[in-house]
């Protein structure tokens, strides 16, 4: 018994020591992760390599380390392209060395917020476009200081603006379209819409009814109700905006009153509910598997989906595959915009270096590399021309035009993350049969209460 106890005590001491060593000595195998972000400097022992950062002109032997956090852990292609950009940047000059730490996307925002609270932000942050105003308002971000003309020709959705300043820029954008098959539309004498002449509300409704009544499909349209979360505001708020409503009154950003519960919004809500009541679309209980394979298997005649999912149907249906513009419900066809973008943290002590890296990263060749690698829309027309999918005549070329012509960014306000959750719940409730007016009124109250609780999110006079 005595021997056993001593063994236990010894083991405990050994384990505690192991933990202690593990905490203070990161493994040499991961040099990028060893560097403490600049923001941590006041509370930690200064890193020897950071000492020259204080001097205006660092020597060639001592480049300043810039930390970069990225959301793409687990995506090997994306990671490889970003590492290549970093390597190119590091070897293109001797003043800065960028080191990347990647995070899984699903927990990325929480990690950033926690790091900000702990005073531990990196120099360069990447962020989802609609979240940017919240982070800028919260003091996590500094405005970008890029050369004049650096963002010329960029898609509007790839530039993150808030309060009149540019805080972030994206190397790509994403767009949503109606997936369809030419043969199906022709079979049922449905007009193929174009960017110049999209479907009207009546045409769209008639097309859905025709396809549903054909008996050939389980549902006429798959909206992607199985994809909860940001998909709802990203994919469905453009319908509301095309009806003439919005998630918030964009003239003041201080209330949703009138925008989310006005006559146009109620008309949208009733139309939205009718899609489910008429059995034209799968409901909120849609199986995720059906969302993935339903259009490919012919269960759904049409599908509302993003460009990132375009290649499998294109491979299956070839020339028969169509990517159609959003319908015009009265106030012009709209789709969502703004994907992941790079910005500079407000606590970075090397903002010039961070800006230099971002300006380096937005070269056309890198935008094209990302597009070819992960299938997203390059941010400039010139970069699109260098890609295999978005070049003139390319299979996904239409998405660039959709992004350019129809994109409307989600409300650029710090209140967006809360608003998005409220909007998602309201749409799900209406889909499930809730009273439209009462639900939208309740959503407005919640959004307004949040804005008020946060002092107007900086929009108050």
């Amino acid at each position, binding site marked *: 018994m005595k021997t056993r106890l001593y063994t236990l005590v010894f083991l405990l001491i050994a384990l505690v020591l192991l933990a202690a*060593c593990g905490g203070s000595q990161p493994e040499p*195998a991961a040099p990028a992760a060893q560097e403490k972000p600049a923001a941590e400097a006041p509370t930690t022992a200064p890193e020897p390599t950071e000492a020259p950062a204080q001097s205006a002109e660092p020597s060639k032997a001592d480049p300043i380390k810039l930390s970069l956090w990225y959301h793409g852990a687990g995506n090997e292609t994306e990671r490889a392209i970003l590492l290549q950009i970093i390597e190119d940047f590091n070897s293109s000059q001797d003043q800065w060395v960028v080191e990347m*730490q990647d995070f899984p996307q699903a927990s990325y925002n929480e990690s950033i917020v926690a790091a900000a609270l702990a005073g531990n932000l990196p120099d360069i942050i990447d962020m989802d476009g609609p979240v940017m105003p919240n982070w800028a308002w919260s003091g996590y971000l500094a405005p970008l200081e890029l050369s004049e003309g650096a963002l010329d020709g960029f898609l509007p959705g790839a530039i993150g603006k808030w309060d009149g300043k540019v805080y972030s820029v994206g190397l790509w954008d994403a767009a949503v379209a109606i997936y369809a098959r030419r043969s199906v539309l022709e079979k049922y004498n449905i007009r193929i819409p174009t960017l110049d002449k999209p479907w009207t509300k009546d045409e769209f409704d008639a097309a859905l009814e025709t396809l549903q009544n054909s008996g050939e499909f389980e549902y006429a349209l798959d909206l992607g109700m199985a994809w909860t979360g940001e998909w709802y505001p990203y994919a469905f708020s453009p319908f509301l905006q095309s009806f003439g409503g919005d998630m918030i009154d964009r003239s003041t950003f201080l209330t949703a009153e009138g925008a989310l519960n006005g006559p146009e919004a109620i008309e949208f809500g009733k139309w939205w509910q009718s899609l489910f009541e008429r059995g034209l679309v799968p409901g909120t209980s849609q199986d995720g598997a059906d969302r993935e394979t339903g259009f490919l298997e012919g269960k759904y005649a049409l599908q509302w989906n993003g460009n990132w999912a375009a290649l499998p149907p294109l491979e299956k249906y070839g020339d028969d595959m169509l990517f159609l513009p959003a319908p015009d419900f009265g106030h012009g066809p709209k789709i969502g915009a703004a994907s992941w973008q790079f910005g500079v943290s407000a606590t970075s002590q090397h903002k010039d270096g961070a800006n230099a890296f971002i300006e380096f990263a937005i070269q056309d060749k890198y935008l094209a590399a990302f597009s070819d690698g992960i299938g997203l829309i390059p941010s400039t027309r010139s970069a699109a021309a260098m890609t295999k999918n978005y070049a003139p005549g390319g299979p996904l070329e239409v998405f660039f035009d959709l992004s350019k012509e129809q994109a409307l960014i989600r409300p650029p306000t710090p209140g967006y993350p809360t608003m998005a959750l409220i909007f998602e719940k309201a749409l799900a409730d209406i889909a499930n049969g809730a009273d439209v007016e009462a639900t939208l009124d309740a959503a407005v109250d919640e959004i307004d209460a949040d804005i008020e609780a946060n002092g107007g999110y900086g929009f108050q006079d």
Partner: protein
Amino acid sequence: MTVKRVKGRWHNVFLVIRYLLMTLLGVVFFFPILFMVVSSFKPDLQILQDTSSLRAFLPVGELSFQNYVEAFERAPTERFILNSLLVTSITVILGLVVNSMAAFALSILRWRGQGVVLSIIIATFIVPFETIAIPLLLLVSRLPWIGADGIVFGWLNSYHVQIIPFIANAFSIFLFVQFFKSLPFELVEAARIDGAGWFQIYRRIIIPVSGPVFATVAILTFLPMWNQYLWPIMVVQQEEYRPVMVGLQYFFQLNVAWGEIMAYLSTITVPVLVLFLALQRAFIESIASSGIKG
């Protein structure tokens, strides 16, 4: 005689119903695990297609270990498992020592204010971790630590930041207190008369007869520690310290890699299941063998 026969028949009927219900419950709990393991050998498209039929639970179609190969390529899975094993096992061991000692002081020793302290500890049950997560983050990001480089401030990006806040646990203390209070106090008095010190009593009298509660607390500490998610994403930014549950997020890309997710989950779940089956046996044995001898 007839009454006995009728009673016996009803007894058999109830027995059959009971077993049927237990079988049904067993199926409910077992099938998700079966689905996970079976799917880990199938390609993504087949997993999605099979979900609408019983094929989802059968090892049919195109089976291979490809998902496992890719799961280990996409994420440093072995590193995450090692991290979780390290963090979990140290927390469990230190938790058993610290919480049982605290419970010993609260149940066996006699001192003023004992009841109040125990009440305060029990009252902390009602405070969910999410409530204290941010204050705790602010605290650990400023605390000093002695490491190989001397004193550094801030515990972020380390193993100890994932361990130390979870060693002392109110529920564990409560379980130990309840168990220790059920022991005959004569054992302690006899030891005191024989000249034993308090630590000797804890070590030689209390621990040997407390196998069941130690096993129970070990299980109850292990599970939440293995499943830690919120705290690590707040305090660990460096990949080399990430635990398994954060690692799971590596597989949720724009196009979700379902097969790899199932392979990853099987990899991190099956060892835990095996471990718990082993611990369960020890748990039962400890109950059977730790009878109090008068």
